[in-house]
């Protein structure tokens, strides 16, 4: 499907996609230290997958296609005194790589800023065009 995208559509939709990415990173970091009584209920990191939305004449914006769950297995730890420990005395720690999530957060915020900058420049140029001849 082709549709005519304005520069505000392009940057605005990219900003909302990056906001989703920032939200999943925040959820991952918030759950980084959580433990669970079984492997299946342990928290696994989430990651959005972006997809290009094509417009007319080489224009394209981005949207979140789906949110994937990490395939990394939660870390099993033997801690029999833990209230959540199972019969064997094991607990599972959330499968979140805090360092990778921090890097992800930085990259997302930089790209969000980039899109804001594009939008601000485009807005400035268009309002200058409106004042043409005055």
């Amino acid at each position, binding site marked *: 499907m082709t549709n005519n*995208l*304005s*520069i505000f559509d*392009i*940057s605005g*939709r*990219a900003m909302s996609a*990056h906001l989703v*990415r920032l939200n999943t990173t925040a959820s991952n970091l918030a759950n980084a230290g959580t433990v669970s009584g079984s492997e299946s209920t342990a928290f696994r990191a989430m990651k959005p*997958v*972006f*997809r*290009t939305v094509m*417009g007319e*004449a*080489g*224009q*394209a*914006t*981005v949207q979140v296609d789906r949110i994937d769950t990490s395939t990394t297995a939660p870390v099993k730890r033997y801690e029999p005194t833990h209230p959540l420990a199972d019969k064997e005395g094991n607990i599972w720690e959330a499968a979140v790589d805090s360092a990778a999530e921090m890097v992800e957060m930085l*990259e*997302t915020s930089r*790209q969000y800023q*980039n*899109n804001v900058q*594009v939008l601000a*420049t*485009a807005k400035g*140029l268009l309002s*200058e*065009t409106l004042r*043409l*001849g005055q």
Partner: protein
Amino acid sequence: MPSIDSLFGIHASALKLREQRMAMLASNIANAATPGYKARDIDFSAALQMSEDGQSPEAAIRYRIPVQPSLDGNTVELATEQTAFAENALAYRSSLSFLNGRIGTITRALKGE
């Protein structure tokens, strides 16, 4: 009587092309994190020539050749795109000021000052 196109010269079509290029560079920046996205740009002088000849400038769209492509197939390099965007914005502004000058000249001629 001269048409509005000959009144403003090449800057009328240049301004339109600059806006198209701005949207295209914005698309590249928007897709900086999309796997498999191929960055595109307009060959500006070719596009300007085409629109002067009355053709659609869409044939002047080219894929960007990346300096170092990333593993996920994305060819957007933010430094390149940002420089191109800044350069394009500046060129848009200069076209605008040329147009402004032209309008000023014609207005003064009309008023007979």
